[in-house]
């Protein structure tokens, strides 16, 4: 099983030096996790390092394909509130 970085990654480099398995590399259009190398931090850290520092919600998926940091979990902004604000901005 391996973690995965998907679209939305802002290429901030935060995860890369933390990975105990050197599974993360810079790429285009965004960083990638080498599924063969990722150990899910098992045995090295209690929590997967990449998902613990990543500042962007939704861009890191766990081994089951579930976002580790779902909407609202990092910013504290309720998703409904975010959606309403975005709709309002688009309407201008």
């Amino acid at each position: 099983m391996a973690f995965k970085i998907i679209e939305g990654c802002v290429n901030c480099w935060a995860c890369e030096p933390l990975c105990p398995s050197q599974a993360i590399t810079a790429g285009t259009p965004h960083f990638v996790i080498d599924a063969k190398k990722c150990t899910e931090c098992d045995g090295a850290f209690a929590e997967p390092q990449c998902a613990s520092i990543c500042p962007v919600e939704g861009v890191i998926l766990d081994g089951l394909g579930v976002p580790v940091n779902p909407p609202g979990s990092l910013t504290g902004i309720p998703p409904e509130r975010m959606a309403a604000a975005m709709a309002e901005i688009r309407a201008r």
Partner: protein
Amino acid sequence: MALTIVSQSGGAAGGCASSGCGSSTDRLAHLPEAIRAKVNNHPCFSEDAHHHYARMHVAVAPACNIQCHYCNRKYDCSNESRPGVVSEVLTPDQAVKKVMAVAATIPQMTVLGIAGPGDPLANPERTLETFRQLSAKAPDIKLCVSTNGLALPAVVDELCQHNIEHVTITINCVDPDVGAKIYPWIFWNNRRIKGRKAAEILIEQQQKGLEMLVARGVLVKVNSVLIPGVNDEHLKEVSRVVKAKGAFLHNVMPLIAEAEHGTFYGIMGQRGPTTDELQRLQDACAGDMAMMRHCRQCRADAVGMLGEDRGHEFTLDRIEHLEIDYAAAMARRAEVHAAIEANRAAQRRQSGEAFVSLASLTRRLPAKPESRPVLMAVASTGGGVVNQHFGHAREFLIYEATAQDVRFIGARKVDLYCTGDETCGEAETSLQKTIRTLAGCEVVLCARIGYEPWGQLEAAGILPNGEHALEPIEEAVTAVYREMQESGRLDQSAPAQQRLSA
């Protein structure tokens, strides 16, 4: 008649006694000579140096280790809400090349800062490598770094080995309960920590880092973001604490929050402070220490100093192949710096005379107790003179004139956050924005101004004035104040609508 001297050291011993400009060093007269020397040429600390020298930033540090409610990493803004910075992330090698290329071309560039776009110490190796190389290759460039402080204690000793001149720590609180409303999480000891506990650790590290730097003789500036209803009153306590620990400047910046930025505060409708609120708080925090009112939130950008059009000279592919003879450049730089110093000394003498002529004039006129202070905005690209077209000004220097003196209050930026990002609403024209930025000012001094803005400014109760183009700022402000006084405009109170704050 005794002149009021803005500096608090008393007497004119500090040099320029004429006004706020150039006197920040005088206000620091209680500091040891070595520190004052450091400050004298620093565009971020010395109001006067700000006109003549510049700093540049390189974006080598994209990673961050905390989240602030006023930041959205998607838009690539740093933890201190540095506005409008589009960062092209450089490797340390590229950054060093770029800095040396700019320094060789623009001798006014004396300070290199690393402020992000994330936290320079979150992944410290990139920042430290840049500093290591520059200390060795370009010893005439001063280095500075801005940090949220979380990782500071761990790298203080290594930082001190380089040509580090000052460190800026963004400290928004000293109380974890306040902090919990500003920081949703931190990354600490390989875990993401949320809530009050996170704020507690952050505050502890910030304070520890501050103490360690002061103990090692490094200048420490503290930045705070003023968030109405969250830390506004609390910042007075912050100010007291950091000064007691030896921070040499405390700089209070306004929160900038718009829904378009996608930040927690922006989306949740947290408002930023009005110009009035900001000024009041800056006054309250000033106490007996110099407050840095002229901070431009890092817009004192060397490449910008000589016009926006020079950026293209320093693109990566150009500098990559550039051969720089830095020894020769350093000699040239030293010459230019000497000329600037001579020029500054001359300007100080000159504005001193202008100042005295105002004083003698007020002596002749019966002293009017109602001669109220007037705020004036100045468009200037540097050099301490009124020399910018109104329409080109991205920021205005705000001066307060009274019958006694002319005091520099601060710089206000137009278009504070985004620069043309398409996600930004176009609800307000840029002229309206500019006018809103100038709230509270009665005059705006510029080199030239178009017909349309002239009319709109007048309608807003702000008098445009292009008659003092290329004059030293303080002389111009003094002259306009005098005209206002003679024409009786100062007998009336400031137009009510101007009290409307932004």
